[in-house]
């Protein structure tokens, strides 16, 4: 079995997160995928009826947006930084801006602080218009090995 560290080493060598996502059951359950756009890594959440929180609007479940934001920030960190471990979330603060329609949702993160032990990212989730996010978050990750 490939270890997570080997997946991350492969991301470092090839710039491709797809094998890591394929090995992560939750990423499959949520329909996450990644794509490189210039200097950006975009994480997408493919719409599925199991992601709905409010069928009468309808709108995606707030938890799915939080999950997308957290995952997108972690993927960006693994892809763009020298981090060799799977980042551990310390704190995530999510702001919900507007109801998210039942369509594909994308997220883009920027690294706001990169330390030796902690990295921080600002991440936005959007649907059709990138400048009109449905939710955003600040995330702090522990990136130091425990052992």
């Amino acid at each position, binding site marked *: 079995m490939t270890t997570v560290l080997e997946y991350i080493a492969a991301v470092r060598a090839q710039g491709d997160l797809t094998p890591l996502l394929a090995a992560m059951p939750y990423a499959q*359950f949520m329909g996450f995928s990644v794509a490189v756009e210039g200097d950006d890594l975009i994480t997408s959440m493919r719409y599925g009826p199991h992601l709905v929180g409010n069928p009468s609007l309808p709108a995606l479940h707030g938890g799915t947006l939080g999950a997308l934001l957290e995952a997108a920030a972690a993927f960006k960190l693994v892809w763009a930084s020298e981090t060799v471990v799977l980042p551990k*979330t310390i704190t*995530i603060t999510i702001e919900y801006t507007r109801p998210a329609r039942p369509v594909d949702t994308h997220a883009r993160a920027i690294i706001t602080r990169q330390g030796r032990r902690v990295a921080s990212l600002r991440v936005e989730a959007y649907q059709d218009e990138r400048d009109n996010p449905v939710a955003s978050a600040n995330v702090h990750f522990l990136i130091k090995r425990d052992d």
Partner: protein
Amino acid sequence: MSEPAPPPPDDEDEAERERKRARRRAWNFGFSENVPHNRALGMVVEDIDDNWARLRLPYDVRLVGNPETGVLHGGAITALLDACSGAAVFASLDRMQPIATLDLRIDYLRPGEVGRDVVARATCYHLSRNVGFARAVAYHDSEDHPIATAAGTFMIATTPGTGRKP
């Protein structure tokens, strides 16, 4: 010699228990029937009362974030804490009104243990005309040994058709 007196009938307690059971059944029905993502995650309402709720997220290999360790992804815990906090706010309302999460902060204190269910308990500690304020904690056995804690605010929607704010 007379028999010892049987304990007095405890109608009130039994009625109270039945009320709680009915409430829990109704909540579980609405919770999974009306919220597809809660159903997909397998969340169940364990208990709910005037301003608090306790939910359980059964361990499920589909929700694993780290394939090497088998630890659940933080996103599933986020959904649990969001749903639980929302349920606590709902429980505080006098009548059914839609609510929407404004913000939610989650602190991850320690990883969950592999193969174990995660329980969340949330309290709506303040309710104003427009906003509900909730605190929540996620744990395996005891709130004293938390996996994550959360603080959330929820907008209480105006009720369609009344033309009035709640």
